[in-house]
């Protein structure tokens, strides 16, 4: 089936089987392997992307359902010159990752959280990040990173980052 996806602002036309998940279409058809797959049945959160600005599990959505929609993935967080998004900086500085398998989903979930709630407290961050599983960090570094990025984003002019 022929569909159109606008991923990180770029329009793509592709031909997919109906059972192709959005996660597989991003990774296999568009080569955007930043979106990771863990469980492939909606539990781990690694594949979280934004669909028209709302967080979704890309493994629980067929690409045909996203036809005509806008998708934001982890590849769209850094600026084109390679400057990291404040969340990416903060995950690095605060040791919010080790193996990195969960990190793209963590970043997109956090990006949505800070877009709708710019200064969440630690309890809110924990609750909102609970749908993303990490087997390395024990989560403390992740909560630190989101809290720290929230502070930076509140202080720094935001034209460079969405």
């Amino acid at each position: 089936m022929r569909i159109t996806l606008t991923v990180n602002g770029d329009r793509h036309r592709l031909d997919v089987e109906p059972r192709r998940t959005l996660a597989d279409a991003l990774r296999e058809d568009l080569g955007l392997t930043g979106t990771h797959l863990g469980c492939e049945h909606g539990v781990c959160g690694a594949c979280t992307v934004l669909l028209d600005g709302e967080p979704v599990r890309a493994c629980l959505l067929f690409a045909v359902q996203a036809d005509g929609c806008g998708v934001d993935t982890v590849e769209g967080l850094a600026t084109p010159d390679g400057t990291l998004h404040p969340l990416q900086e903060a995950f690095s500085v605060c040791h919010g990752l080790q193996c990195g398998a969960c990190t793209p989903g963590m970043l997109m979930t956090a990006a949505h959280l800070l877009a709708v709630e710019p200064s969440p407290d630690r309890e809110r961050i924990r609750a909102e990040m609970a749908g993303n599983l990490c087997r390395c960090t024990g989560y403390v570094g992740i909560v630190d990173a989101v809290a720290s990025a929230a502070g930076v984003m509140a202080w720094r002019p935001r034209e460079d980052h969405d």
Partner: protein
Amino acid sequence: MKCPPFEYHRATSVDDAVAALAAAEDSKILAGGQSLVPVLALRLARPTVLVDVNRIPGLDGLDVRDGVLHAGALVRHAALARQALHPLAAAAAASIGHAAIRSRGTLGGSLAHADPAAELPAVLRACDGAVVVAGPDGTRRVGADALFVGALQTDLAEPEMITGVELGVPDAWGFAEFARRHGDFAVVSVAAARFGDRLRVVVGGVAGVPHLLETSAPSGTGALDEVAGALADDVDPSSDLHGSAGHRRALTRELARRALADVITEPAREPT
């Protein structure tokens, strides 16, 4: 795992969806997909046709008329959690899964899936609600007490589709649940709704269908404990990996106390 192959039909209207459902031997409605797609990915089901109802216009409305919330079947949990027209439905929807689940999952889908531990079936029953169902022979209205037949089983026939949901807006309400982890299905949940002097308290997670206790709203000292105790005696839970029957009964009592705290007003205690 990857999902098994299926044919995909993007419905343009309710009639189109019902016709597509009726035309295929083993068809399924694809709404939010937050329960169906895991089932496909685990290959527990192999429907031949998925009828995607997400783009049918006009099924995402929210409107209160004569004390009843009329909601479209495609209202997402996130939208239900944000609205102020029906605070009990909002509180229950906010307890579902995580943000990424709530942005896709739908009210109609949750009711049609009829998971015994899910929040919205309990709310539908607590509010003595109903679903509006479209099928090949026209539309019909199914009350909450008749809709849920057993675990994951409803009164709906294969080519039927929930198009709307009616939820009475209670005069007072409460909701409480206990889950092993944040965002998990609840081990036990309690939804309480008072309409005038009628009290409906529903427990999820203790039977195949949401368990209802209907009583006249009591008042006076000890009324809260009386109803919570009656409810704990009334349920007949079974044991599984997530908790023993005794644990579920204890949870029923405690969560009922919490859910009823704003519903039953006891006279203020005399200072001692």
